[in-house]
């Protein structure tokens, strides 16, 4: 069974015009004799699903979207691909493996299929799972086109979030701010000399609106606070639109947003190796069922006490779909695991 792509182009896809162009070029140059498979890689909630969903209106019946909502326990998904059209978008491919002995069988089957198929496979991956698999299983070779979605700046986040409102939002500066309003950190892609390869570097996103507002007369207070809110939001979310949206929804109350409510979840994490490993699995899989997590950890690690501790720290949450890192804690968790050298 495969799923038709969602109709309606999400605004999130418009954040990545360069990446969109690269993806369209890859599709345009596709031929069954030499299918150049694509890997679209991003952080949790950073917008890769809307990014690939935006292909639907353009390619119609030529394309099918098949998201893996949970860990694949068999190779049944390959049957679905066999029945699909010439371009398959396979979402959340981190669900093709489990980090345990024997947990790579479905991934191996998929990679073997990818090497022989005449269809074009556009896959999306969590960036931490992708980086791990590139090193542990050399999957990079199967995907000649690799698109890493960059972080986005405060201006783009503001535009997207406010586009969802028809009524006016009031911004209240109820806490003194030490935040520089002019600068936030995004990413910019550069072409390297000689080799011609591309690399992404952190790039300041300069926002002159607050400065202009301060120089003007009447709207000074309102514009400055508004930009302050979104600059802070972008900094806490680290340019991740999904995280920014989650924090925003938590902070907006009756069409009013107070600066003081936009705070980073920053518990001073000090975890055991087992807890860190559990956190790593959750972060890499983005959302994982408790039973699948238990399969990764058994029999060495007792899941329940560690999960309880991580929940009590306010960094993960569990619902019917599974366990996930809470959006507001994504930056803290990633930093901690990077410090522990568990994510690369």
């Amino acid at each position, binding site marked *: 069974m495969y799923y038709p792509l969602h109709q309606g182009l999400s605004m999130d896809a418009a954040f990545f015009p360069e990446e969109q162009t690269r993806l369209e070029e890859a599709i345009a140059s596709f031929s069954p004799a030499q299918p150049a498979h694509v890997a679209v890689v991003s952080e949790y909630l950073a917008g890769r699903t809307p990014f690939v969903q935006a292909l639907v209106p353009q390619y119609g019946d030529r394309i099918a979207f098949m998201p893996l909502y949970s860990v694949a326990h068999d190779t049944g998904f390959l049957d679905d691909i066999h029945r699909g059209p010439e371009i398959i978008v396979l979402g959340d491919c981190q669900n093709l493996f489990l*980090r345990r002995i024997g947990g790579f069988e479905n991934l191996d089957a998929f990679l073997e299929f990818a090497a022989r198929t005449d269809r074009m496979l556009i896959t999306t991956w969590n960036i931490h799972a992708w980086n791990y698999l590139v*090193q*542990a299983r050399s999957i990079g070779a199967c995907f000649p086109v690799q698109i890493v979605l960059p972080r986005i700046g405060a201006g783009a986040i503001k535009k997207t979030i406010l586009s969802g409102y028809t009524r006016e939002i009031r911004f209240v500066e109820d806490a003194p701010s030490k935040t520089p309003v002019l600068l936030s950190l995004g990413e910019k892609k550069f072409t390297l000399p000689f080799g011609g390869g591309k690399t992404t570097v952190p790039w300041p996103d300069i926002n002159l609106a607050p400065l202009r507002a301060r120089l003007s007369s009447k709207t000074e207070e309102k514009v400055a606070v508004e930009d302050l809110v979104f600059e802070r939001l972008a900094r806490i979310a680290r340019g991740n639109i999904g995280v920014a949206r989650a924090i925003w929804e938590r902070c907006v109350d009756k069409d009013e947003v107070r600066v003081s409510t936009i705070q980073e979840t920053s518990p001073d994490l000090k975890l055991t190796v087992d807890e860190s490993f559990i956190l790593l699995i959750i972060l890499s899989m983005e959302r994982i069922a408790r039973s699948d997590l238990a399969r990764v950890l058994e029999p060495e690690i007792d899941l329940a006490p560690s999960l309880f501790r991580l929940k009590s720290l306010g960094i993960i949450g569990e619902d019917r779909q599974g366990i996930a890192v809470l959006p507001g804690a994504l930056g803290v968790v990633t930093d901690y695991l990077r410090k522990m050298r*568990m994510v690369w």
Partner: protein
Amino acid sequence: MAETSALLLKEIDTFTVLYVVYVLIAAYIIVWIVAYLLTHFSERSGQYRIAVDTLIPLIKVVVYSVALYLVVTTFVEPSLSEFVAFAGFFGAGVGFGLKDFFADIMGALVITFERPFQIGDKIAVSDTYGEVIDIGIRSTRIITPDDSQVSIPNFLILSSAVSSANAGSLAMMVVIDFYIDTESDPKGARAILRDALVTSKYVYISEECPYTILVEDFPWYLRVRAKGYVTDLRFEFEFMSDVTGRAWAEYARQGIKPPRVVPGIALS
């Protein structure tokens, strides 16, 4: 003779002695505080732990050098003739009774600046293996895997072959050997060991730190060897234990057996 001494040395009184004592105590306290703070900071620095630790011996050398200079200039006028005379006394002292002591100090200087290893490294000197926890003025202290603290004179370190398992990096290669029966499936054994290695919670893999799985045929057994890097050298033995335990459990499930002859006995 008394006249010569008066030329060489400044007048020594109670204040001079107290000054020297204060300088030495202050140097010791400064070194202790800085070392404590840097160690505390390094433990919270994750992947930068060893880089921070590197500063400790350097600061020790600088502080003690300044203290020595202050002490010496308290007693000796800084003229050329007195300096030469002081150097003569100093050389004689070193030559007669303090040779080893000064050899250790010179060893500390060489270790600090040449850096054959750093604080935080895992080194092997003669038959001693462990993590370097301090490079002192006289000796280097290491903690062995069974938690014994061993002080090795710096001079001895300089005159011996020293191997550093990680050479300043937090990641360290760990080699894990498995011996299996010759009738067992080597391909399956290799695949299981690869999975056990790359799925370990302690593994670190990058382009600079790749992993390898090797199979070698011996007369009485097959050796399956995993080489991989651990995230933090402090987890060296936990890493080995984790991979070994999970791999053997899977071997047992897949019918891969240990050799019928113990390797050491077979070879002998």
